[in-house]
């Protein structure tokens, strides 16, 4: 079957199988920022936005994206640069493999709760696993990013 979706602001039509996930479709469409770290919806690496909300692309059927808007980190390069500077300033990215999923979830957090406390940041991002950093530097970086958003005009 064919699905038509708005991917990073551009309309795309693609052929999918009934049991394809959105993750599979996005990789096939060249969205390399989207990673897979598990098959059990535990790791958060495949996080993208669907109609502005964070979803795990591994557990969304590709067929369900028909008529919806999907955003990946490729479509949020400006924001990525600013959050990226906060993360890199701490050395908090380490291997970087979990970074795109984490960042997409941070953008969702920024929209939902721009004044999040540290505890709220941790709770919101708890589903984004990272094996390298030990998390505490990411918490600082995300806090700094949210604060920098506040001073934005």
């Amino acid at each position: 079957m064919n699905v038509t979706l708005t991917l990073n602001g551009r309309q795309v039509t693609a052929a999918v199988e009934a049991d394809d996930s959105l993750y599979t479709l996005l990789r096939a469409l060249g969205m390399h920022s989207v990673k897979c770290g598990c098959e059990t919806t535990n790791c958060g690496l495949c996080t993208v936005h669907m109609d502005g909300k964070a979803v795990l692309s591994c557990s969304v059927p590709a067929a369900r994206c028909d008529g919806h808007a999907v955003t990946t980190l490729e479509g949020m390069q400006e924001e990525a640069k600013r959050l990226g500077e906060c993360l890199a300033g701490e050395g908090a990215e380490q291997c970087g493999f979990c970074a795109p999923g984490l960042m997409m979830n941070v953008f969702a957090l920024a929209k939902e709760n721009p004044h999040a406390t540290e505890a709220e940041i941790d709770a919101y991002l708890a589903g984004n696993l990272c094996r390298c950093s030990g998390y505490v530097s990411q918490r600082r970086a995300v806090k700094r990013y949210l604060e920098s958003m506040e001073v934005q005009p």
Partner: protein
Amino acid sequence: MSGGNRVRGGVGVPVPKKDAPALLTGKPVYVEDIAPRDCLCVKLMHSPHAHAVIEEIDVSRAQKMPGVACILTHQDVPGTRFTQAGQTYPEFSPYDRLILDRHLRCVGDPVAIVAAQTERQALAAMRLIRVRYRVLPAILDAAQAMDNETLIHPEADWRALVPDCGADNRRNLVAAGEDAHGDVEAELAACDVVIDRTYETGANQQCMMETFRAFTRMDAYGRLEVVSSTQVPFHVRRILATALEIPKSRVRIVKPRIGGGFGAKQTAVCEQYPAIVTLKTGLPAKIVYTRGESMTLSSPRHAMRMHVRLGAMRDGTIRAIDLHTLSNTGAYGEHGPTTVGLSGHKSIPLYTHNMKAFRFSWHTVYTNTMSAGAYRGYGATQGLFAVESAVNELAHALDMDPARLRERNIVREGEVMPAYYGETAASCTVDRCMARAREMIGWEEKYPARTLPNGHVRAVGMALAMQGSGISNVDTGAVLIRLGDGGVYNMSIGATDMGTGCDTILAQMAAQSLECPVDNITVHGVDTDTSPYDCGSYASSTTYVTGMAVVKTCEQLREKIVRVGAKLLGCAPEDALFEGDGVRRADGSAGVSLAEIANAHMMAGTEDISACVSSGSPVSPPPFMCGCAEIDLDPQTGEVKLVDYAAVVDCGTVINPNLAMRQTEGGLMQGIGMALYERPQMDHLGRTVSNSFLQYKIPTRVDAQRIRVEFAPSYEPTGPFGAKSIGECVINTPAPAIADAVYNACGVRVRSLPITPEKLLLGEREA
């Protein structure tokens, strides 16, 4: 161009990683991102039995399925046994496996390789492969393995390349040995107190976020090109050449960015499968392990059972340690002979100061479980859980503060450590690490425990740790630095940055040595065709071993630049000075810029301005650290929460404070997971139950309430700018520190990890 500090982003500066912008904008830089779109998809059919022989295998129906390019069984692979362990000559791990074997030795052992145009097609074809197995008795318990009538490697062509490590396939043994100093029995007999305990650790998973993966293709010269997520490109080249029976000249390994390793990728877990498909078909092929595969057929920590006897006098003087380690290498011997050694050699030396005698003996055995490998800490983690727990138990037996007990016994700078290969602790601030960590956690007020108004108990515990910095007289690092167009330096690195940031810190060292901004050093690695030989990134070697190679390479390069500069200036090299951005006459009369030197040698140049120096070390200076844990125990449920962790590390000079800090925090978090959450489990048939993040719980950011790290730098005279390693040491303290905090909270001593609420509530109570 004279005077001033031209170095920017040099040693000691927290510069961002050079690859950060690409990683943090989601650029396609990892293996799967850059694989050709038309790669065949390679899938493995796994053994359902822990121990079996394939009586018959029929792939005829599967082969006719749409999209299938090739299906390989044990009849189709070369007959030369090899090891997947990425280690330097003479390889200690026995040559005990084939790419596919008729004899299956653990659940998950590959039965067949299926390559098809899509994953869906490969899996559909695999379901049609018919296999008749003859199931054999399986050995699942390491304690039953030695001299069992069931032999896991009865094959005649099994081969130990280093026979004196005690390997004997007729006894299910991969290693056996003993190292001793003094009369341990006599010393123990003379001691007032002897702690005699057994501790156990499991086959923990590294859980790097990027699972094992590689793609392969034939290049324009008919050579096999392998792009792999590996820590050991040069070892993988040798392993593949051996396994595939092709010359090394026909193999090229490329390492792009990799999504974490932690030792897992010091073993060539998956490269051989797409490689043989490409050789057989001529087509590009890729394999990407699922998380499930990464947890059932990978290279986890060696599970160990450690029997410690620790002898001391009433006043707390530790006189003798006797440690025996039984290590489970699983179905194959990868890293089996070597990991076990660290369990004693990197735990016992902490207590060198008053020690009269030690004995460390070990056995590593085959069992019908997943083959173990290298995991950050590499045996030291296991040994330190045992020895540090025993020291904490001794403190309780003597009714002494464990910090005081340690102060009395820890190794001092300048002392020879007989249990550490007789090496000297030339740089050591473990005393300062301990003093500061205690201060940070508030040890004096908090030890041992207090009850909160809500009934929860808060308690503290501590542990020390050490590791090495590379393998002495073995590990080799090298970089190649060339001066290029306009005065830029290109540094080619053979060490593998796996997210740790070694490309960046090596560039910082080069910037320091060449007196230039770190942005003037470009880095590239790793490609076995163009990078200088480096054993790879493991054994905590990169900062120390490869870092020293950077220092030596820069020294040589500076001399060359001065020689060319002096020629342009019309003076003798002795009369010219290297100034970072150029070369100047010593009398200050004239100078020539780096760009002019670089550009001049490109015009009918006669001398390549480059240098490449290899470096190894006769010693492996240990980093040291102290970790103090504060926990909150709910006595109603047995739930333990980590409230605070204070760690102070002596890694010598800190090259990049941010990256060293992240290494420490990340290592601590893995150690915390090992202590409290991560439980490798298999069922009675040897099937791994903990095969996903649903069952195998690694810490989340909610579990990282408070982790604080400081450094107590020593100066290591043999290290680059005084640096030692940091990557592995930092995983070692949480398990013993948290175990003692738990004991202080509730009186239950857990000697087998992880520390679960069930264990606290149901058993393991002190008699």
